[in-house]
């Protein structure tokens, strides 16, 4: 078990309401989970709390128990134990830039260098991650001259280079064109071979086919948790506005639930 939440609530400093309300769930290695909900539902907060960034960097108060890779990320010793073991990717690439690298290679190497790995190990990991992320040809470029899409793939390489035991990705394809987004999503199940991968996103149309599990949040509480076809194909998902486009169309066409959640699924159901 990679992450376990037991009755977790979280409130940002100065906020009137909790951003997470009594959340209880667990993420397992080998599983790709989509965390989704309407805007402000608490998906990003859940990722930050799992990483211990909330409350340590964001401020605020957390109640309940969180166990990430065996430790509580809110404690000092927990954070030290987790250094470099959680791969977090945020939606905006340029604010994740280290701020001190002059080449893409050095940018990707920032994390491993900070962890004190020896140079040969760093070189090997950086080389491999840049290859997987498709940015090897950008190695000597200045990161500040890249496009949003290129930069996001570089940041992804930077996260992979640290060989984390858990991936927490917040809208990882926000800056990517459809082809690149598809490539990134296709990579997720490979990443999940022996780790948990959690993606917070509203891109349900494309992710429905790729993930193993969907957790839906509303106003900080878990409202659904299960396989994509069940959660996203339910009438409730359409009502909440979190269902894929195909499901919405099926609903409007008068088809009874559960709705298909992808074009391929719809084709299978109605072409027989």
């Amino acid at each position: 078990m990679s992450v376990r939440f037991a009755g977790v609530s979280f409130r940002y400093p100065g906020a009137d309401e909790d951003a997470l309300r009594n959340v209880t769930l667990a993420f397992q290695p080998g599983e790709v989970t989509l965390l989704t909900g309407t805007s402000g539902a608490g998906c990003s907060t859940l990722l930050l709390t799992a990483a211990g960034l909330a409350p340590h960097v964001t401020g605020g108060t957390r109640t309940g128990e969180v166990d990430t890779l065996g430790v509580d990320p809110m404690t000092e010793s927990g954070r030290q134990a987790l250094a470099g073991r959680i791969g977090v990717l945020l939606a905006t690439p340029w604010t994740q830039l280290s701020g001190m690298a002059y080449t893409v290679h050095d940018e990707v190497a920032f994390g491993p260098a900070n962890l004190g790995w020896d140079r040969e190990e760093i070189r090997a990991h950086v080389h491999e991650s840049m290859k997987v992320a498709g940015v090897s040809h950008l190695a000597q470029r200045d990161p500040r001259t890249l496009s949003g899409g290129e930069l996001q793939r570089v940041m992804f390489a930077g996260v992979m280079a640290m060989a984390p035991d858990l991936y927490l990705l917040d809208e990882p394809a926000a800056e990517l064109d459809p082809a690149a987004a598809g490539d990134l999503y296709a990579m997720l199940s490979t990443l999940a071979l022996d780790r948990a991968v959690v993606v917070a996103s509203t891109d349900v149309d494309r992710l429905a086919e790729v993930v193993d599990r969907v957790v839906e949040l509303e106003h900080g509480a878990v409202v659904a948790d299960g396989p994509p076809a069940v959660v996203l194909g339910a009438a409730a998902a359409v009502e909440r506005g979190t269902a894929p486009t195909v499901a919405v169309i099926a609903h409007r066409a008068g088809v009874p639930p559960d709705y298909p959640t992808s074009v391929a699924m719809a084709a299978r159901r109605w072409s027989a």
Partner: protein
Amino acid sequence: MVRLSARLLALIPLAVGINLAMGKFASTLSLPVFLDTVGTVLVAALAGPGAAVLTGAVSQTVFTVVDGKLMWLAFMPIQLGVAVYAGLAARAGVFRSAWRAGAGGLGLGVLAATLSWPISLLLFGGVTASGVSLIATILTALHIPVAWAVYGASLATDLLDKTISFMLVFTILQSLPSRTVARFPLAARARGRA
């Protein structure tokens, strides 16, 4: 060596950026001030004198590099003095009202001029920033001794610069939304409300 938090590591470079960018606004508005300590004073109010001192030190160093003139490094004591003064002033509630901020800025102006005057005079003969040099030249033409001319010029620019800077930081602090202020434990106390 104190371990810096990620929050400060992220904030300080941006605060220095603010220091150096404010000058652009001032010159576009044709104001005879630098406003090059606004970022440092802001950090003092948000995170205390220690963080502000670090901001000031990094700021003076980087300004020296960016401007290409090593002599700016000699004026480090002024940035550090500004940082400590601003941190203590913030604690004392100087940013809770416009009048207090203005008065605090005047006091800082005197301190800054008094610190920079001997450095400018003894090390560089009184010629450093063009504006100050110009005023000093005019004063010497009026037969005022060089030492007093340089002090007078420093005082004139620093009183204006530091008073405007303090009142600007007061205005900025009052405009910040509560949730931003809530992230900096000292900020609520500095501006007088959460």
